[in-house]
């Protein structure tokens, strides 16, 4: 799922000036927590049937963004539905009383778990480190969730 990125990349460079304002204040989600080997999602983003990830359950990685418009949570589940490079991921708005509204529900690039010792020998600089630290960004206008070279329109959402 990579061969299409070059034209987009070229376009990004060639039209940098034109699109720059939309990217001027991309907000980065910060790592929140990881739940390993769970059969129930403590934050209630995923139903139990989505957590079939093997004998011990699934793993959930969460990233959060607090803004004046409300709190946003990105939850990625490592379960049987993952491909080799992507996993089911949701962007959720946390409303008053903890009410969840799903704004994006799609397959997104797998995150790199922070402090995972197995990846200790890999590069810690440049875009590699940037993606590892902030795999999810929200565009300045709040309409696009950016995940590496993936982009997802942020919808009105459904409870």
């Amino acid at each position, binding site marked *: 799922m990579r061969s299409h990125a070059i034209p987009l990349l070229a376009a990004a460079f060639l039209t940098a000036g034109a699109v720059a304002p939309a990217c001027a204040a991309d907000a980065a989600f910060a790592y929140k927590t990881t739940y390993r080997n769970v059969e129930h999602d403590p934050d209630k983003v995923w139903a139990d049937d989505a957590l079939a990830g093997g004998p011990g359950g699934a793993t959930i990685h969460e990233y959060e963004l607090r803004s004046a418009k409300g709190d946003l949570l990105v939850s990625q589940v490592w379960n049987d539905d993952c491909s080799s490079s992507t996993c089911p991921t949701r962007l959720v708005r946390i409303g008053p009383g903890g009410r969840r509204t799903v704004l994006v529900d799609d397959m997104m*690039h797998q995150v790199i778990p922070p402090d995972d010792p197995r*990846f200790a020998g890999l590069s810690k600089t440049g875009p590699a480190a940037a993606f590892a630290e902030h795999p999810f960004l929200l565009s300045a206008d709040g309409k696009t969730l950016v995940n590496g070279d993936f982009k997802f329109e942020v919808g009105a959402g459904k409870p």
Partner: protein
Amino acid sequence: MSRAVKSVLFNAGVALCLSATLAVAGESAASLTSAGIPANCADFAAKVSSSEGNFGSVNQAGCLGAFQFCPGTFERYYNGSAQSFLSNPQAQTVAWTQYEQNSWSQAQKNGLTSLVGQQVCSGGRCATIDQSAILMACQFGCGKNGKLANYAASGDCNARNVKDGNGVSVCSYLIRGAGYDASCFTGNQPAVCQESPSGPGDFPTSTGIAVNPPTASSASIVVNPTDV
């Protein structure tokens, strides 16, 4: 440089790095066979690897090796460090074989193999969906809510829910993967025509007589290693 331009370049840089494996052609069928992929499935493996990477490849999303196992997949299929995985082609082919077999099982469980035999057209190209096409498309996920499942439900290659975050349709991968022998992963003989052996030594070791050799007592000719 303004912050805005930096932001664009950063995003573009991440895109480039996530696509860094484009710079490599992937592993050849011969090298994959040497690493343990059965000869009859090596062409399919090479086709997948061609859009992924080489044994030593790492992209900036932490995806590793000839089949670009990203962290979650890596964690599930390999028990060791990233560095040891990168330096062990055999471990990569073992992990990928298990991954493909699991993908096929999941495709069956979710009814996705019912697509086999159907024609799919996208981007001006058409193909008949077969086992290898299904497995290639499973790079978009074979889950019950995944892109391939969405296509199976709608038959629409242009629907938003059959496309990835770059707008690439799962149909393009169905077409890309069609026509290969993937029986090593599905356990079924391929519907595609295979080249017939034309001489001694042309029989793949995973199929036909080579996988079910006669016992020495029943064989009319016995060739010992020292005779070769």
